[in-house]
């Protein structure tokens, strides 16, 4: 058994970069959607909380793969209908952006719940006090609520991040040349499928292990205010 990549290292490397890019951008999108979703779900406004409730129920209740296929093709077909109606050139949703949007939208629902839990873990008095001394709501959220809730949110965020990275392995279905697709192509051309799947597994493990180091640093960072209280 040789460990040679038989010249496919470039293809795998390019695929790894695509997977990383998609995972990270999806994380950013889902993080923002999650924050907004949590605020909406906890809001006194019935439309916002109901809307966010429908979103999390719907998205978390359908397998990510099914959603990916549904969203990707239906959005492109809808877009074609619009451009054709107005006699415009077709707008092709570029596969990487499509994957980011779809993954971000799906995992935004999970982040919504993560942040909702974290939001509730911070005593109400914190926000009330900030508002009482006259801070605008957004500043109070950014300076008072967010740093405190992140402490509670980080374990959940770390969990979601790992799931996002691994779900990014499915995007080849949307025509993206990610790491998994590159491995399948290399394995298929060389008839050493197991070897190339193994390579991809090791790369995934390396990425997730490295992220855990980073996340541990973040957890320490957001623990600053309470560290003294520990024994």
């Amino acid at each position, binding site marked *: 058994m040789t460990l040679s990549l038989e*010249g*496919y290292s470039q293809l795998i490397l390019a695929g790894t970069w695509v997977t990383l890019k998609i995972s990270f*951008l999806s994380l950013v999108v889902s993080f923002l959607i999650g924050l907004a979703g949590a605020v*909406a779900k906890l809001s006194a406004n019935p439309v916002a909380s109901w809307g966010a409730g429908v979103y999390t129920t719907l998205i978390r209740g359908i397998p990510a793969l099914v959603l990916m*296929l549904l969203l990707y093709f239906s959005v492109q077909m809808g877009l074609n209908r619009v451009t054709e109606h107005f006699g415009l050139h077709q707008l092709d949703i570029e596969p990487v*952006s499509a994957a980011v949007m779809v993954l971000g939208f799906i995992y935004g629902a999970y982040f919504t719940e993560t942040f909702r839990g974290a939001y509730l873990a911070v005593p109400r008095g914190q926000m009330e006090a900030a508002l009482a001394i006259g801070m605008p709501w957004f500043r109070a959220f950014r300076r008072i609520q967010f740093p405190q809730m992140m402490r509670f949110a980080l374990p959940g965020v770390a969990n979601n991040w790992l799931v996002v990275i691994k779900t990014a392995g499915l995007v080849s279905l949307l*025509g993206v040349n990610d790491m998994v697709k590159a491995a399948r192509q290399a394995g*298929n*051309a060389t008839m050493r499928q*197991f070897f190339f799947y193994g390579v991809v597994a090791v790369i995934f493990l390396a990425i997730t292990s490295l992220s855990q180091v980073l996340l541990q640093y973040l957890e320490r960072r957001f623990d600053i205010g309470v560290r003294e209280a520990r024994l």
Partner: protein
Amino acid sequence: MKKLWLLGALVALSLQAFALNAQTIKLGTDPTFAPFESKSPSGEIIGFEIDIAKAMCEKMGVKPVWVENDFDTIIPALQAKKFDAIVSGMAVNEKRKQQINFTDKVFHTPAGMVVRKGSGLTTRVETLKGKSIGMQQGTIFEQYARKYYAPNGVTVTPYKTPDLYRADLLAGRLDAVMDDAVVLQTTLLATPEGKDFEYAKPALKDEIFGVGAGFGVRKEDTALLKKLNKALADIRKDGTYAKIAKKYFTFDPYGD
């Protein structure tokens, strides 16, 4: 909230404007089907069907632009206009014809079944009772197995890609696999691991195996269909097809 949606929309709208350029044609393929279409170490898409498509494009005076897409979702992607034609070893059949149009036959290689040497298994359903048989999902081989084998106590297991059923056959989780004979030859029987396996007899013959593979185009693109058929006839006539075929096969992949 509004700002967030705007940000999301910005990411989504990093769209490629698709110019309706008469000089190029977008061809969709899943390059995991050697020797018809596969990927070289340098990332180039290569194979018999790829060369045929290139020769046809030359006749048509257009430049092919390759778009990769999983075989599973290649018809919806064609309909969503991700590309203009499917060049992915797609067998012509009635179910697919309801969705898309096909060019004339591009190739028609025989169907085959591979079993372990000395297993005594044949393509006859009596010998396969209680056995497991694998193939790529969504293929005519799955249709055949579902029609003739599954109702008679044979476990039919479709796989996403040929490499997956191959792995299960080698691991002994499958007793037989079905695919195009050329694919079985190059990906299984001609490899070192394939030495313990052989074609099951007698040869598979059925109308399910149909008329061979063609390029798929959208129903409404009748002009493109005509042009492709004309180009195909041209390369058949002037010997280009035969020359390409000789590069990949020891027999005539056109069939009949």
